[in-house]
């Protein structure tokens, strides 16, 4: 007998920001799936108009307390390319190191505190710590080392103050950076242990079929720069991004949703990065992925926890490599004179591709800004995945189904603060 039910989560926990979920079912038929973003709008793109281009990294950092370096990096990339400035290699490597710090902090937070409790049947990492204190302590230690990298290079872990258009305000000495070597070696061991730990969790078999989109660079696992490539064969300069992707405004959301121009869902983030670029991971990360049973591609959102763990290994090894090779730059920054025109910048935030575009005048005043965060890009893919997960699990009772739906959403590490400019979980049957 067909029974109608509605399953609702009116405030998603263990995600960043305010979102909710509604699923409506009629017997085994999924009638409606919705990830609603009720986080209030903050209008960054509006009040960036009239500001100096030099203020963009400090202002856009405030969009997100979890990934401020992503905002700072996409902003400086856009503005430096517009003004014809290429920063010297040691400056770029310091930016990559700062970004690795953010990946370590954000991935450790998500793997241990937000996501692992779903797999192990706990409400939080705090509860998990009662039964598995060593695991939670390992996660916190790892997270802390990520923060230590950000603090040394960026000045502080949340909203770093040291990033400027053209470089940094102050660059660290070799000796200062070397203080991070011993902690990062410990972090690498903890990250390898994290891969083993997450690989041993139980996963329902899932595959998502949508296009995968990530940055790519010939000889690096792309983080702080790259071309936009997709599993369907796109290969774009940042300036070509909007020719192929568009944002829609739908009623249920204070976030705009992205799709392929003319229709089509795509996914950015760890699964896309791994599938499109795993051969560029560090040796230790590649080996750890192999031991964890990951193949040349991973399209299983539940296994994103393993991929994030592999990326933790990469971020630690890459940080160690950068510190080993670091030569102090001649000056902390290159002077940048504003050039009237439009600049485009991209980078890989921990949860996916982050696109910025700025139009500025000859005085450096911002005339127009456009920011497309990863969660806006992933929202349609999340909803498609949610619809399919519900359709395959209609026999579950309301509580079990609600938990599975929430976990499905957390698989994507949505950052709703970013996306608002973004989600409510209800299941109706």
């Amino acid at each position, binding site marked *: 007998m067909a029974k109608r039910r509605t399953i609702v989560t009116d405030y998603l926990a263990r995600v960043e920001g305010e979102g909710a979920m509604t699923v409506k079912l009629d017997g085994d038929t999924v009638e409606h799936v919705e990830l609603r973003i009720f986080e209030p709008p903050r209008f960054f*793109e*509006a009040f960036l108009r009239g500001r100096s281009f030099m203020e963009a990294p400090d202002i856009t950092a405030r969009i997100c307390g979890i990934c401020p370096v992503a905002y700072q990096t996409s902003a400086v990339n856009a503005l430096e390319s517009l003004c014809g400035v290429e920063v010297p290699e040691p400056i770029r490597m310091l930016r990559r190191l700062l970004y690795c710090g953010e990946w370590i902090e954000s991935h450790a937070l998500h793997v241990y505190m937000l996501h692992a409790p779903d797999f192990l049947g706990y409400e939080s990492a705090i509860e998990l710590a009662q039964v598995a204190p060593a695991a939670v302590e390992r996660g916190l230690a790892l997270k802390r080392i990520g923060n230590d990298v950000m603090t040394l290079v960026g000045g502080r872990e949340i909203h770093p103050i040291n990033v400027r258009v053209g470089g940094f305000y102050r660059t660290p000495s070799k000796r200062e950076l070397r203080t991070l070597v011993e902690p990062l070696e410990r972090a690498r061991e903890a990250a390898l242990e994290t891969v083993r730990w997450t690989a041993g969790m139980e996963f329902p078999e899932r595959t998502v079929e949508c296009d995968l989109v990530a940055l790519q660079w010939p000889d690096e696992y792309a983080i702080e720069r790259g071309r936009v490539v997709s599993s369907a064969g796109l290969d774009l300069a940042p300036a070509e991004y909007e020719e192929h992707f568009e944002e829609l405004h739908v009623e249920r959301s204070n976030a705009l949703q992205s799709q392929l121009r003319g229709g089509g869902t795509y996914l950015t983030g760890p699964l896309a990065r791994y599938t499109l670029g795993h051969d560029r991971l560090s040796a230790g990360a590649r080996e750890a992925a192999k031991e964890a049973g990951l193949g040349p591609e991973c399209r299983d959102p539940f296994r994103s926890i393993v991929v994030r763990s592999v990326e933790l290994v990469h971020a630690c090894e890459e940080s160690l490599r950068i510190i080993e090779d670091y030569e102090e730059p001649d000056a902390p920054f290159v002077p940048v004179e504003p050039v009237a025109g439009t600049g485009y910048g991209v980078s890989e935030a921990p949860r996916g591709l982050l696109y910025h575009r700025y139009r500025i005048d000859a005085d450096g005043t911002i005339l127009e800004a456009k920011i497309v965060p990863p969660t806006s890009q992933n929202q349609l893919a999340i909803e498609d995945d949610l619809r399919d997960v519900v359709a395959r699990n209609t026999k579950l009772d309301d509580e079990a189904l609600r938990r599975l739906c929430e976990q499905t959403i957390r698989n994507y590490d949505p950052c709703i603060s970013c996306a608002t400019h973004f989600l409510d979980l209800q299941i109706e049957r």
Partner: protein
Amino acid sequence: MPAPERKMSDKNGKPTLAVWKFASCDGCQLTLLDLEDELLAITGEVDISDFREATSAVVDGPYDVSLVEGSITTPHDAERIQEIRRQSGALITIGACATSGGIQALRNFADVSEFTRIVYASPEYISTLETSTPIADHVQVDFELRGCPIDKHQLVELVTATLVGRKPRIPTTSVCTECKLRGNLCVMVAHGTPCLGPVTQAGCKALCPAYNRGCFGCFGPMESPNTASLVPLLKRLGRSDTDVERLFSTFNANSEPFKEAAGRNG
């Protein structure tokens, strides 16, 4: 600062803590999770009753201490804060958004319908207030912790002091004081770099001057900010009216002293 009038300890005999979010970037509540070395010790002493970023487990109020992040920007949030106040012993705001309205308070000086049109294709879907306002504009607040973001050590000090019922040691002097303590060279005197340190509340340990840049006011105005002297000095250093307005128009733009210094009337 008043201590909670009575301890509403839960069944485990521990005080209860709740963390609430309004319009914000999540960075200040993340500060609690960034206390990696202290977090498990804190959760041993305090029961976290409601903290959605960290846990799905929710215990109903009342709560001994509520930490509130973010500013009020929607009609629904203006009602929600009233209920949180009723459920809370001590209500502490954390960060510039909750304490002054945040950078999203720049809408207070602009046309919000225009802002909505710039960001959203279908402005009719958006429900928002004309203004972004601090929590204290809506309910009584027991302590306002400054910063964009807050300082984690100040957070631990404040929560500890609140739970034992003593006055927290949070300085209200300026960033200049911290520069002297840290032994920084004065970036304004030595390099002519514009700096809000003289009028900005301490708390960051003079971070920006230590990185060779001027303070840009994350902790908001200090107790008695002499902006009347600082603004002409900034202009003598070659800053235009627009530069000065921008300098005061960031994360604490809605605070009275910074609003005035930016040349905005009331």
